[in-house]
């Protein structure tokens, strides 16, 4: 069971007054303004917010793929950079980013290859993960021979392959149908409860964020900033039936309100 966030324990991911400006020609885009947040170790949080509000930016900052213009980001007490160098991150990007020259299973095995996992083991792991996302039949195809949703599933399998301490997922399921999506939601939770890693999950679906998370961070745009943090007091393990519970609907309404309050 993940530890609920407490004020005392050292947060796994901590942002302090983070501001991000993208230089574009002679002007700048203020993508994030004064964002501060703490995410506890083993916590599952979601980022919700309208398109262009800075969710991807925030994720990239946490992953040390960008550096904040001002403010600081610490991961387990160290810099985000140190965490990245320690290979703590697994990332699912908003687009699949598969390597064209690798077959699907070699794409999935890529992070394992980078960590020098023996060939046999990583092949097995890759195949198991492909089965999890329902792509075992397509293991020997090239990425461009897959449908959009299948590519995204391959990318998810790839991120899960390395069992990262911190899993950053940018709208991983948005290209999937509801059934696949719900199934993968449950799979993700079951993996998470086993591995006990920290997950930051970007989504546009309020029910999805509620079903998965301990807390939901709501962002608002122009400039991107944190407008609300909603605790999800649903018990763990979560079951599909919870989706129909009154609490669930109440939470949906609450988050929707915090949205509209923007």
């Amino acid at each position, binding site marked *: 069971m993940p530890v609920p966030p407490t004020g005392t324990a050292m947060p796994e991911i901590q942002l302090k007054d983070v501001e991000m400006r993208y230089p574009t020609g002679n002007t700048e885009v203020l993508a994030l303004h004064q964002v501060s947040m703490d995410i506890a170790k083993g916590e599952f949080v979601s980022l919700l917010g309208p398109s262009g509000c800075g969710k991807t930016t925030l994720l990239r900052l946490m992953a040390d793929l960008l550096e904040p213009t001002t403010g600081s980001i610490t991961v387990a007490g160290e810099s985000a950079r140190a965490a990245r160098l320690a290979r703590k991150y697994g990332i699912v990007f908003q687009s699949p*980013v598969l*390597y064209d020259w690798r077959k699907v299973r070699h794409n999935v095995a890529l992070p394992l290859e980078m960590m020098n996992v023996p060939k046999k083991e990583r092949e097995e792991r890759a195949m198991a993960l492909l089965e999890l996302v329902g792509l075992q039949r397509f293991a020997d195809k090239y990425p461009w021979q897959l449908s959009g949703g299948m590519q995204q599933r391959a990318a998810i399998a790839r991120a899960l392959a390395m069992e990262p301490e911190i899993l950053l997922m940018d709208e991983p399921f948005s290209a999937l149908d509801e059934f696949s999506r719900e199934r993968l939601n449950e799979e993700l939770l079951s993996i998470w409860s086993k591995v006990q890693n920290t997950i930051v999950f970007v989504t546009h679906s309020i029910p999805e964020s509620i079903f998965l998370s301990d807390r939901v961070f709501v962002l608002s745009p122009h400039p991107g900033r944190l407008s609300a943090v909603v605790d999800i007091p649903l018990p763990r393990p979560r079951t599909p039936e919870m989706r129909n519970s009154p609490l669930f609907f109440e939470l949906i309404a609450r988050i929707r309100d915090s949205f509209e309050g923007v």
Partner: protein
Amino acid sequence: MRAGTLFMRHRLVPVLVWVAVILVLWEAGSWALLNLAGVPLAQSKLPYVHAIVTTSVQYSGTLLKEGSATFGNAAIGFIIGAAAGVLLAILMSVSRWIERLTFPYAIASQMIPILGLAPIIYGIVRDEYISRIIISGYITFFPVALNMLRGLRSVEPSALELMYSYAAKPWSVYWKLRLPAALPSLFSGLKIAAPLAVTGAILVELMGAQHGIGVIMLRNLYYGPSHVYMFWSTVIVGALLGILSYWVISLIERLASPWQPEFRTRGGER
């Protein structure tokens, strides 16, 4: 099997038709130049195709022997030049500083013609065979380096970020991402360089080689218009070596990077 026949039917027929058309036009042009225009040295300007063919057949033994000698030298020069080009490109892609430092000099070095370079190379290595190989490598390396550098630099930002998120060592970034991603560009460079290597090998043969197409090319030029057909035969042999090298590289490209959009099988032809 099927791909093979497909390849043949799609590629070979047009090439053959082209060759036929060019040869007919050439022959006609030659005839016109000789009989209608009445310009001096008409046959030197555009010799009869049939005469070249006859000469080539007559001296096919020599042409084949010298041609293969040249091709062998070209192959060695090409491999060395290509390797040097790839290496330089990798070095320059590692850091813009290295690029800034080495690139102007790489360009400048390309401006030294063989005539100026030869004494230096001879002076340094003191072995004519090695010097010749170095020189023909020197001719081929530049296009490979530039194309490879472009390829290494044009990697998709997000693909790079993936590597970055794995804290990939530079070595892995190259091996697993940049190099495969640069293959299409590299092959463009190699396709330019391969025929150039033949040029280089021929050029190098003018520096006192005993054998090679370049040697007979030079002699036939030198001994005058009575040798036009033989001279043109050597030019044709050089050109054929160029086709051959180009074709070999194209074939390797198909095998080494079948994922390229051009090579993908598509449902339904457009």
